[in-house]
């Protein structure tokens, strides 16, 4: 399958001399949900802006479904929808007019049914006649999404889609993302909410100081770095690990009140039942058990800090 997006050796140096991106290479397949993670100023927005035509690249090439974004910009851009980080709307226009405007701008024939469906999906239908300046922040963001989807793009870019967004909108947003994915739309998003990337994204790219330091399937990444951990809260404080348990890779934490066991959740035998039996045999009482898992955030912090 040919990639829907292919970024090769894309570099960006701003006029000030600041290097925003050092040679970025990235391919995204059709129908994928790809999450770009990275600290502020890492170059996430610059990369998206280059692909969408808002910023010109210093060198390199970007193909959207095989169309060069510079030479064949019409075909490339017609496939892309962008929801930028900041809300930017014509404040005097009505909701319906501004969505229809974007569809026209992208060269699509007016389709009242399609616009109605879109506004209904985004709970904007009742507000269709309202000027955008009369809307709340969350509603404005919905309008931004409606505009980006108005021309039925094949690739949707969401730059920090859930930053400063209330719970309802966040839930709706992910619902929309799921539905779009089911329709085969490719979604590329940047986010600070790593749990969301972990839950939603098929693959994750970590960008730091203008370099793409890692691209990995979310599941593989979690497998590789995502160790699980069993914490056993002791009934009585333990000075040292008793000899009966010497064969287990255990360590004591919290001043001997917690026994910690790291294991691989994907392994056929996690060892947990045996460990618990051995504890019983050794006459060690415990009051609580807890399992946890390395989050993508831990992995991310690890990568960015150790990559320094």
């Amino acid at each position, binding site marked *: 399958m040919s990639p829907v997006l292919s970024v090769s050796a894309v570099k960006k140096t*701003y006029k000030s001399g600041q290097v925003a991106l050092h040679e970025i290479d990235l391919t995204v397949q059709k129908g994928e949900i790809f999450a770009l993670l990275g600290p502020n100023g890492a170059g996430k927005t610059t990369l998206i802006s280059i692909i969408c*035509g*808002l910023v010109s690249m210093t060198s390199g090439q970007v193909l959207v479904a095989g169309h060069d974004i510079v030479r064949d910009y019409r075909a490339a851009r017609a496939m892309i929808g962008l929801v930028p980080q900041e809300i930017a709307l014509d404040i005097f226009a009505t909701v319906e007019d501004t969505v229809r*405007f974007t569809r026209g*701008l*992208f060269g699509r024939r007016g389709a009242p049914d399609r616009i109605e469906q879109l506004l209904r999906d985004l709970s904007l239908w009742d507000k269709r006649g309202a000027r955008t300046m009369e809307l709340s922040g969350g509603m404005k963001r919905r309008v931004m999404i409606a*505009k980006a989807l108005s021309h039925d793009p094949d690739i949707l870019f969401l730059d920090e889609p859930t930053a400063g967004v209330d719970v309802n909108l966040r839930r709706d947003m992910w619902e929309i993302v799921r539905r779009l994915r089911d329709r085969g739309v490719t979604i590329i998003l940047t986010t600070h909410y790593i749990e969301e990337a972990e839950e939603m994204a098929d693959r994750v790219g970590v960008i730091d100081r203008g370099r793409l330091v890692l691209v990995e399937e979310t599941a593989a990444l979690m497998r590789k770095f995502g160790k699980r951990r069993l914490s056993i809260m002791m009934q009585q404080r333990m000075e040292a690990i008793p000899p009966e348990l010497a064969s287990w890779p255990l360590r004591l934490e919290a001043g001997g009140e917690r026994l910690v066991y790291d294991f691989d959740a994907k392994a056929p035998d996690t060892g947990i039942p045996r460990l618990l039996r051995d504890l019983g045999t050794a006459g060690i009482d415990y009051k609580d058990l807890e399992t946890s898992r390395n989050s993508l955030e831990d992995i991310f912090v690890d990568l960015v800090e150790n990559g320094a």
Partner: protein
Amino acid sequence: MSGLNFRGIWAIYRTEMARTRRTVWQSVATPVITTVLYFIVFGGAIGSRMKQVGGVGYGAFIVPGLIMLTLLTQGISNASVAIYFPKFTRTIFELLSAPISSTEAVFAYVGAAATKSVMIGLIILATATLFVPVRVLHPGWMVAFLLLTAVSFALFGFIIGIWAENFEQLAIIPSLVVTPLTFLGGAFYSIDMLPQPWRTISLFNPVVYLVSGFRWSFYGVGDVGVATSLGFIVAFMVLCLALLWWIFRSGYRLKP
């Protein structure tokens, strides 16, 4: 999609024209009221004490100049605001990310701005006929000058809108350069009425050529030859187009 993005051009044009409808009083009533005031002051109060200028009654004489003045200021302000405002509100991202060429976008924005100024110009012409007898000797040339001037100054306004980084800069060229040039450009007098050296200095004022050519199309008299006028306005238009070509090529103030 292949070929030109006509729907995109239409979307911009229609949205820009809708803005005029929303602000119909500001867009249409203001120039009409201003023109009526000019007629009362210049045509009525002053003109009644003036002889004819170049064989034309003073009230009728100032009509082409007034229309030109409006075309210039309206063309510049409409087009500059049309492109500056999306920059200011950051909605310009949409234009930059759309499958529309710079030429198409300019065509749409400048077309809308020029349409508005021509409409206002014609309204002023209609208003003027209520006050003074207006003849148009060369209607074809009149329309040609009207369109060329409206388009050229809309292009000029578009450039100002791209160049401006704040509202002050947006206002500075119209108020500091264009208004003085129009008032000194023979809208209210023939430059023959000026003493030397001002008469010669006036020949360096581009507006003189616009007003003169336009007035010639009405009454067959002008300060300079009609070919010179036409040549000037075409040259100005080419200059604006060349500047715009450079702006889009370099991404000046649009794309970092």
